[in-house]
């Protein structure tokens, strides 16, 4: 009797353990995303989130990966490198994430890179555009970092090439945020111009969160450049464009102007006609029908907001990561890393994406501009 009860208990215990172990194996696959959820770049963080979540929803609807669902946890890094380090260190310490994602701001991504190398977890950069990220990855560098979006250097080279053909590549002034992003912009532009025997007319930086651009705009206008390359994002960009409008503008903008973030009234007024910009993406791209489907699905998710480059990049980067996990056949970070290096992915931009030896993908960039109060696609360029 006593023995029977003990045997029964033992069986139950074994069964429970098996069940628990089985449950653990069936739990979702977790990816940790570090994005700015608050602060001056929070709109970008929101788009990154939408893009990633859309990709994950689609993957889960198609049966998940390795028989399990995918889940992404989002941590706020406030576009600040120390914050990024703190939150990602925490995520790594919790030891349940198979990969780290995004970072979004270049400074944050650069700060995260050493962490993932120490912890040996893959890090997929979707939006940070600083060229140094790719320079420090892959062969001879950080083997765990992968960059999906084009570097500033290559995009700006494409832009300058375009401007040069129209004879508009000389006497360009530069104004950008004083961060890795902004400085990558000025370096990239200067390098691209130098190749064609030009140089920047002037270089000015502003602190993120600057309220008043009127003085620096007055200074730039007084120097009468032929164009102004503006490297500002999100809230700073909104502020700057408004004040630029107040000051009467008068000089065409270029660089990486966020043409899809210009306030509607200003766009419609034709004030910014003549702007030429280069971006990794624009919702009106129609090389393949997949973009329209993507835009529609995105709008459904975001409540009517069209995707901006950040949403697109996070979407494709998440899909690439999910695809790698599938091909790895396991959730072992090293296996996922190896699978990433062998990626061949069909992009919405009509290209087949592969990582080069610096773990960098060279997707096409879009050269867009504003004409007649509307955004117009001028062409595409390999990066």
């Amino acid at each position, binding site marked *: 009797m006593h023995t029977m009860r003990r045997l029964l208990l033992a069986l139950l215990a074994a069964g429970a353990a098996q069940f628990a172990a089985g449950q653990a194996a069936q739990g979702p696959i977790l990816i940790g995303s570090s994005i700015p959820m608050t602060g001056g770049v929070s709109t970008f963080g929101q788009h990154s989130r939408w893009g990633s979540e859309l990709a994950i929803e689609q993957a889960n609807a198609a049966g998940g990966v390795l028989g399990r669902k995918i889940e992404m946890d989002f941590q706020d890094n406030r576009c*600040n*490198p*120390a*914050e990024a*380090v*703190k939150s990602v260190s*925490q995520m790594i*310490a*919790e030891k349940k994430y198979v990969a780290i994602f995004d970072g979004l701001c*270049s*400074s944050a991504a*650069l*700060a995260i*890179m*050493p*962490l993932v190398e*120490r912890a040996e977890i893959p890090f997929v950069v979707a939006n940070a555009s600083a060229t140094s990220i790719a320079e420090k990855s892959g062969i001879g560098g950080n083997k765990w970092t992968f960059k999906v979006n084009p570097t500033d250097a290559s995009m700006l080279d494409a832009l300058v090439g375009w401007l040069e053909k129209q004879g508009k590549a000389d006497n360009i002034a530069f104004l950008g945020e*004083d*961060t*890795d992003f902004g*400085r990558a912009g000025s370096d990239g532009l200067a390098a691209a111009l130098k190749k064609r025997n030009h140089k920047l007319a002037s270089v000015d930086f502003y*602190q*993120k969160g600057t309220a008043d651009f009127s003085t620096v705009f007055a200074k730039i206008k007084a120097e009468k450049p032929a164009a102004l390359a503006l490297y500002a994002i999100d809230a700073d960009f909104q502020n700057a464009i408004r004040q630029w409008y107040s000051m009467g503008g008068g000089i065409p903008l270029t660089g990486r102007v966020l043409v899809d973030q210009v306030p509607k009234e200003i766009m419609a007024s034709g004030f910014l006609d003549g702007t030429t910009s280069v971006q990794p993406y624009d919702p009106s791209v129609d090389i393949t029908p997949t973009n329209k489907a993507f835009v529609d699905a995105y709008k459904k998710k975001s409540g009517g907001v069209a995707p901006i480059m950040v949403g697109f990049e996070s979407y494709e980067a998440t899909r690439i990561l999910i695809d790698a996990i599938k091909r790895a056949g396991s959730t072992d970070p090293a296996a996922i890393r190896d699978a990433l290096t062998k990626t061949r992915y069909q992009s919405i931009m009509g290209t087949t994406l592969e990582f080069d030896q610096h773990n960098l993908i060279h997707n096409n960039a879009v050269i867009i501009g504003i004409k007649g109060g509307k955004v117009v696609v001028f062409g595409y360029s390999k990066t």
Partner: protein
Amino acid sequence: MNRGAAPLAFLVALAALFAVPRLTGNEYVLAFGVSFATFSVLASGLNLVYGYTGLLSFAQVAFFGVGGYTCALLVTEWHWSLWTSAAAGGVLAALIGLLIGYSSLRLSRHAFAIVTISFALLCMIVSRDWVSLTRGSMGIPGLPVPSLALPGGLSWRLNRPSDFFSLMLGFSLASHVLIYLLVTSRIGRAMQAVKLNEPLAQSQGLNPLGYKLLTITLSAFLSGVIGSLFVFYLTIVDPSIFDFYYTETMLIMVILGGPGSFWGVLFSTAVLTGLPDLLRFSTDLRMVLYGLILIGAMLLFPGGIGGWFKQRRLAHWRKQPYGDKP
């Protein structure tokens, strides 16, 4: 507890504290230890300056950050070792502390408070704008794993959080021993005299400036060193090390513990370091709470916990009958 048992109990507690990493690999506990070590040095330093000498200075965080940047730059640019770089960070911070201490001579207390707070802000601005030196808002990420050369030819690689736990807690302990010895000595009593009534203390032959300089310089040095260790724990230094958040937090620890109360401040530091993780408040709500505590303390109980205990002791002492104990 007789005199013999107290030090023994203390040593046992200490041994237990340092054995923690071996007993548990729990990340939260280790992170708590590092946090506690850092804030305890900062708060005790502030307590030394404000609580014991009566000088309300907000420059503490500047020493912290200057130490951090100095150490990071020396290690990454000139390849010094962590020992020497951290010491250099402390020394530079101490020199700045000396300057600030001298300035207190010429300034009213209002102006001094404003100047120290502006100085902390200036440090943040400089670290952000002087890009060629500090890399600006991008910070200096990827600080290398430090190796400390120990006596006997050994080398200690600090590549796990438990290593930093031991190192920083060890430094905090040493700092506190030093501060304790100082405040219980004749110098300590002199400082308290200066705080209570500066003109009276001067009339007795004490030089207030000397004591102010001593406390500011010492607390600056300690803050600079712990700042150096802290940034290597984080593996990054950026302008956010000068954040007002540090000033606000160490201020609360001192006020709650009681300015001038050594054990009170230590206690409140431990509580306030552990509380956030227990309560899982968002940082902002926690700051709101701290602000409310600060307001409440100023209106109702300026002496803090330590002050409350002191009042009780005094009240008890007053109740004693005159003459010798029966």
